[in-house]
């Protein structure tokens, strides 16, 4: 048997290979140059880039966790009153956030980990099966290493410093470990389930499509809840207080609140005996569950080490028959099919809709006004209300580069197909626009419920700004298809965050141009009517210019 340090060293190379495979194995064929010298240089630089990106993303995630822990605990202390409750809320919020962040990282990377045929490479080497499994397990830990360690170190320290309780800090430490085990287990369950779906069947029955959609939506929930938590963070103590009055015992048994109660109990010893007993018993159950999950996790990792996940099964085939579409529709159908089977693509595809829902739902916390009564004439709309539609639609700008990056999938074959560039671009614009209109409709429907009096203003405003939004989508798609498409060869968006951020910032300018015009006119003329007229003219002008761009594409 090899020593742990030897296995650690081997795992470094294997981990690199997993990361590399997950990004490049079947995506860049036909994109990389093929001279021995240039290919090597190019692959080396891509590999280094990927590693750097991963480290950067891990550091950002860890920084976020550290900042959040410190912020939640120190701000909790500042509440003065109800400090016990602040501790419960602080610990619960941080635990759930750690869980979501790790699961979010996991959904982006663990499917590649599970599906990589790394065991096939390791098993023929003179290593025992146990060693192969250990290497795979270490590689799995490497995916999450910095955030896991940061959470384990920073959270208890921040709690200890804020509340001055060593026992409380120890309970936090244990709670963080429990949470991390849960998060890793969920990641592996999702990854295995996703991988088995891809290997065992893609298309097929309506039930299959429905379950796949449901399954894929689950991947998005962590992101959605993460944002919700942050947007209503200030209201969590209020919410917990309310729930404590209504369902005190249920709350004390629910993860992560039970662990929050246990920590608070260890720090202040100030709860009624029933709540205290319930939180102790339920927390002990969670500790036991974490232990069981850990064992299951190890077994699964050993299974992956033995290559037991990389098997597929054959589907009973239906009649040999294909449905033909117009080329642009064929591209859209293909994009939707690929996206619906890739967690990374799918999360991006529905992100604009999710963002709109979250922004609209948190609208009332951004604007502390009585939403049912307020009525604003469009010419005197306040600026923060004016920019709301553009900001809440920001994520739509992620779609064109994401959809174009799908064109790199199997390029060595698809590159030989007679696809007109214009057809491809139009297909991407149509799909992005459909998602835009779904987001818009969702936003208006939500406004009809939470602020019906504002609905007419938002309908008119969004009607005007839609021209600008579609213009941004068109220009962005044309621009990215000409310039950046090969840089986006990876389907795992997590590895290419920086490109996506830059693209969004660049094309957000086009989307914001009517609003900038509005502000400038308002500054100089103080006329709401002229400002709205300026906003409308610029928005429509942008749309016409974008159409010209599109017409010129060959």
């Amino acid at each position: 048997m090899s020593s742990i340090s030897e296995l650690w060293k081997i795992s470094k190379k294997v981990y690199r290979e997993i990361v590399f495979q997950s990004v490049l194995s079947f995506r860049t064929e036909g994109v990389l140059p093929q001279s021995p010298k240039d290919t090597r240089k190019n692959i080396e630089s891509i590999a280094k880039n990927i590693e750097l990106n991963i480290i950067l993303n891990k550091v950002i995630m860890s920084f976020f966790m550290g900042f959040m822990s410190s912020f939640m605990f120190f701000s909790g202390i500042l509440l003065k009153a109800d400090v016990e409750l602040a501790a419960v809320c602080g610990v619960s919020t941080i635990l759930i956030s750690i869980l979501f962040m790790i699961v979010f990282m996991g959904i982006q990377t663990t499917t590649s980990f599970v599906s990589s045929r790394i065991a096939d490479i390791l098993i023929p080497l003179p290593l025992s099966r146990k060693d192969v499994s250990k290497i795979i397990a270490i590689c799995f830990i490497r995916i999450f290493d910095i955030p896991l360690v940061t959470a384990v170190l920073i959270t208890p320290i921040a709690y200890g410093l804020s509340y001055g309780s060593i026992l409380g800090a120890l309970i936090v430490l244990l709670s963080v470990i429990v949470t991390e085990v849960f998060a890793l287990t969920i990641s592996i369950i999702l990854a295995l389930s996703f991988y088995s779906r891809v290997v065992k069947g893609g298309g097929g029955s309506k039930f299959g499509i429905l379950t796949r959609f449901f399954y894929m939506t689950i991947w998005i929930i962590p992101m959605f809840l993460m944002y919700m938590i942050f947007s209503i963070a200030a209201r969590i103590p209020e919410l917990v207080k309310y729930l404590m009055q209504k369902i005190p015992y249920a709350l004390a048994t629910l993860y992560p609140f039970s662990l929050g109660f246990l920590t608070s109990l260890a720090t202040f010893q100030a709860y009624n005996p029933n709540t205290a007993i319930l939180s102790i018993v339920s927390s002990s159950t969670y500790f036991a569950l974490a232990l069981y999950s850990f064992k299951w996790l190890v077994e699964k990792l050993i299974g992956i080490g033995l290559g037991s996940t990389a098997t597929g099964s054959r589907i009973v085939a239906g009649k040999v028959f294909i449905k033909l579409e117009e080329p642009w529709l064929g591209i859209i159908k293909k994009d939707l099919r690929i996206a619906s089977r890739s967690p990374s693509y799918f999360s991006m595809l529905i992100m604009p809709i999710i963002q709109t829902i979250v922004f609209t739902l948190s609208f009332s916390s951004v604007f502390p006004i009585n939403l049912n009564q307020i009525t604003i004439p469009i010419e005197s709309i306040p600026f923060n209300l004016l920019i709301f539609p553009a900001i809440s639609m920001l994520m739509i700008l992620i779609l064109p580069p994401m959809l174009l990056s799908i064109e790199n999938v199997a390029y060595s074959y698809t590159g030989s197909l007679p696809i007109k560039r214009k057809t491809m671009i139009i297909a991407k614009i149509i799909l992005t626009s459909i998602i835009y209109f779904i987001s818009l409709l969702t936003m208006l429907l939500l406004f009809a419920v939470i602020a019906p009096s504002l609905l007419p203003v938002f309908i008119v405003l969004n009607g005007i700004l839609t021209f600008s939004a579609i213009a941004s989508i068109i220009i962005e798609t044309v621009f990215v298809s000409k310039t950046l498409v090969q840089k986006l060869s990876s389907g795992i968006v997590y590895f290419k965050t920086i490109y996506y951020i830059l693209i969004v910032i660049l094309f957000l300018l086009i989307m914001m141009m009517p609003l900038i015009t509005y502000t400038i006119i308002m500054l100089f003329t103080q006329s709401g009517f002229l400002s709205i007229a300026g906003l409308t003219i610029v928005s429509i002008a942008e749309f016409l210019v974008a159409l010209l761009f599109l017409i010129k594409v060959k």
Partner: protein
Amino acid sequence: MSDKTAPPLLVQSLTVKYGSFTAVDNISFIVNPGEIYGLLGPNGAGKTSTLKTIIGLVQPASGRVEVFGKPISEEVAVKSMIGYVPEEVILMDSLTPREFLEFVASIRRLDKNTVNTRLEKLVSAFQLGEYFDTPIAALSKGNKQKVAIVAALLHEPQLLILDEPLIGLDAFSSKILKELIIFHAKKGGAVVFSTHIMEVAERLCTRVGIIHRGRMVGEGTVEGLRKIVKSAEGSLEEIFLKVTEQETGVQEIIRALEA
């Protein structure tokens, strides 16, 4: 529309470079209607680069490539006339063959009324029916190859470009493909294919071109090449080794191994 009087494929002074590396160096050849043209050469000789340039996957550094008189810069028109099977079959893994072929057929704007009849025949010939709804990711290498072959033949292309098409195929499918290639040529179509299997090239090809280190070192019928290398009895394999100056190397290596 294609120019019926122009040759299916004209490659003239083609040079392909990857940075400072010259993969294809001033190669010229013509493929005529009804011809099966074999592109032979050792690994890394430049065969795949030549084929990828014809199909538009690689940009040439210089030279002229025309398909039925159309320069390859007229991408869509040229690609519409070609059926291509790549050397390493990398398809869209998460799609099933049905979904993949739907995409390919839609892009090629095939006729709704005839495509399914042809598809049924091809799928049945390559025994792919039972895998039609299995994700490509779960298919064996051979079955992936069959999906690529069906996709390449579906639109009845005038020019077939096949890069090592027999690798991974079982004996039955290999036989079917060879028969299809012959049938395609008999109907007046043209085929260019690269292979390492000399027996296949010898049996199938009307003419062969031998590429070595990016250059065309021999071209003609097998008989013609025999005369050139003065090896009247030799097989294509022997001719190939002579032309690529590897014959002595092979004997030396074998002697060294035996010793």
